[in-house]
């Protein structure tokens, strides 16, 4: 590896976002010559986990907005950090004690991401934590305080619930039974004709669900616009219910400790490095013009030019107008009551999800306990997400206060020790491919900014893998590896 520029690389991967990193993992046993670069000092790009110091430079870099005239907009914009003047006195610890996840997606146990991590043996380097309860925020009503109602999420759960009247239980049970089997030929006739209609209307018409129960069901779809269609809503509820109990009792999704998808990106890059790939952080590779019959050349900051048989990167701008607003808040109390073990033998959950009603679209708050390693003990990190509108920053800040009040009661007027706000484009959902000379170059679309990880985000990774692998690609070997030497030597105790 004396000279980076000497001979062509089989692939240059620009950026260490989740998709680029999973590609590096997929190629890690291929003997391909891989150069993997990232313009930042840290791994993960838009899926990174940031210390408070890194959050500040991230906010400075992405502070810019998007004027209406711009056709192409940056993926992240309007970023800002804030903390109270006396944050340290109130309990804010040193910057490296925090790890704010830019991609805090929960991962359903049925997700292909998990099965790929298992089959590629990369899961051994990740610690997974359980996602616990899902709640709906109930505003104050008739003099009663606002509160969080836990959504029952299995049939046993519905059965034992005290808060649902018996008649409603029967209709909810009927719905749950249906949704578990909704893709079967028996059930399809019931919904296929209404596939694109509103799930809420369908629940009323077909199952006579009452308003409270409908809100539970719609909240569980985690549709950011609050308007799931029958098709997408049933698929989301089915995923939720069938994921329950897969890796143990009481949870349907997991979360990687230390910063969510960032951790998976890092483990995947590490697998790439162990496989012989060369990693360069703080390095942006810029495509140079190339002749029709030449390979693409990329220029690195040190003046070196490298040639590549293929180039894989991520889209930095998007034509998409729709964006989400995200507020990441460090809260000075642990909100322990959200992380209770409710099923015998279940692991202590480290993540809870709360749906807050709001117009025009709902707000989702995902709360991470200090078990995630993202904040010191005694605090928690709340990730609030809603579709971006002119007022959404203010709405998210209010939702945070409402949430903490509903959990803690009186003494919670200013719960926040630190916050990072930004807007993230929802992206075009398609990878793009173009040719630079003889070199194909593929760009990944931004990851879905959803509450739960979407398996569809993995499709582009496989497309890129096929592109790089060319004739050698054998689908059966995609992300299926043996353990590396020494990886499972855990039963020998050195006495």
């Amino acid at each position: 590896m004396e000279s980076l520029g000497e001979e062509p690389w089989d692939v240059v991967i620009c950026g260490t976002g989740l998709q680029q990193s999973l590609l590096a993992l997929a190629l890690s046993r291929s003997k391909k010559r891989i150069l993997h670069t990232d313009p930042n000092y840290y791994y993960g790009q838009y899926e990174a986990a940031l210390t408070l110091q890194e959050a500040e430079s991230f906010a400075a870099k992405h502070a810019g907005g998007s004027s209406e005239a711009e056709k192409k907009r940056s993926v992240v914009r309007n970023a800002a950090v804030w903390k109270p003047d006396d944050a340290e006195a109130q309990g804010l610890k040193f910057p490296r004690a925090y790890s704010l996840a830019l991609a805090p997606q929960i991962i359903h146990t049925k997700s292909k991401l998990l099965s790929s991590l298992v089959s590629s043996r990369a899961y051994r380097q990740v610690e997974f934590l359980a996602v616990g309860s899902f709640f709906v925020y109930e505003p104050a009503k008739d003099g009663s305080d606002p509160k969080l109602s836990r959504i029952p999420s299995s049939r046993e759960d519905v059965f034992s619930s005290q808060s649902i009247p018996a008649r409603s239980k029967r209709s909810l049970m009927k719905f749950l039974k249906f949704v578990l089997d909704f893709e079967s030929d028996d059930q399809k006739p019931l919904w296929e004709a209404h596939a694109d209609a509103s799930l809420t209307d369908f629940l009323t018409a077909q199952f006579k669900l009452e308003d409270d129960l409908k809100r539970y069901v719609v909240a569980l779809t985690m549709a950011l616009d609050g308007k799931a269609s029958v098709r997408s809503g049933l698929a989301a509820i089915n995923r939720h219910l069938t994921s329950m109990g897969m890796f143990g009792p009481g949870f349907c999704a997991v979360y990687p400790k230390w910063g969510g998808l960032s951790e998976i990106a890092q483990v995947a890059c590490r697998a790439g490095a162990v496989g012989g790939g060369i990693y360069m952080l703080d390095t942006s590779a810029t495509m140079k013009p190339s002749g029709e019959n030449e390979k693409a050349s990329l220029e690195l900051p040190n003046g070196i030019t490298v040639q590549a048989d293929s180039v894989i990167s991520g889209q930095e701008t998007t034509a998409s107008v729709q964006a989400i607003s995200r507020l990441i808040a460090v809260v000075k109390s642990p909100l322990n009551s959200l992380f209770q073990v409710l099923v015998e033998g279940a692991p202590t959950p480290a993540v809870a999800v709360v749906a807050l009603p709001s117009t025009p679209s709902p707000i989702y708050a995902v709360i991470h306990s200090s078990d995630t390693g993202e904040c010191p003990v005694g605090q928690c990190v709340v990730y609030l997400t809603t579709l971006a509108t002119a007022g959404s920053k203010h709405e998210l800040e209010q939702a945070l206060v409402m949430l903490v009040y509903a959990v803690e009661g009186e003494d919670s007027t200013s719960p926040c020790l630190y916050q990072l706000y930004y807007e993230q484009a929802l992206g075009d959902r398609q990878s793009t491919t173009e040719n630079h000379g003889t070199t194909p170059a593929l760009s990944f679309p931004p990851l879905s900014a959803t509450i739960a990880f979407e398996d569809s985000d993995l499709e582009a990774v496989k497309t890129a893998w096929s592109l790089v692998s060319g004739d050698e690609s054998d689908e059966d070997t995609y992300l299926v590896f043996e353990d590396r030497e020494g990886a499972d030597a855990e039963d020998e105790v050195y006495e």
Partner: protein
Amino acid sequence: MSTRGGPAAARGMNARFAQFKLVLLGESAVGKSSIVLRFVKDQFDSYRESTIGAAFLTQTISLDENTTVKFEIWDTAGQERYKSLAPMYYRNANCAVVVYDITQAASLDKAKSWVKELQRQANENIIIALAGNKLDLVTEQPDKRAVPAADAEAYANEAGLLFFETSAKTAQNVRELFTAIAKKLPLDQVGPRHTRPGQRAGGVSLGASGEGANTQAGGACSC
């Protein structure tokens, strides 16, 4: 096949099991991987090439009847040159072994710069050990020594590091090095939830059932 929780669980309710992330740092060819290979497999290979392909290693040591410590060892994967794996290394590391070669004076300078970087970037309470490797060479030919043990030890004391001169080749002080680190780790902070591997702080094991899940995914495609 390994059984998770075997050794600790077998020792009953008082058993403590703790897992810690250990990172190895130091210049190329000072013997980082050889030290790990000696510790994990009790092997030595004089002609071992630069580390590619075998950098995920774990080793469990028993400190006493009730205490088992598992090291998750992060070797450099032969990527010293671009220092680009470093940020991954520092994050959440509980302990570090910084290695130099006692026959190469410059390698101690490099080790010192790693120590400085660890103290700046890593966890506040990270345990760092300094290991002067290739003691066997000096035992055979004393004039090969380029770093006096006393000098390195004085530096280690000043910087608050554990210090050992080791030989991966003869195994001298290798086990002692890791045991000393294990003894300094905050085992008393290991609560009841840490008593079994895979069960830390609400931890979820994808191990056995995960493989089942994978088979299922292959069988019944849900896309």
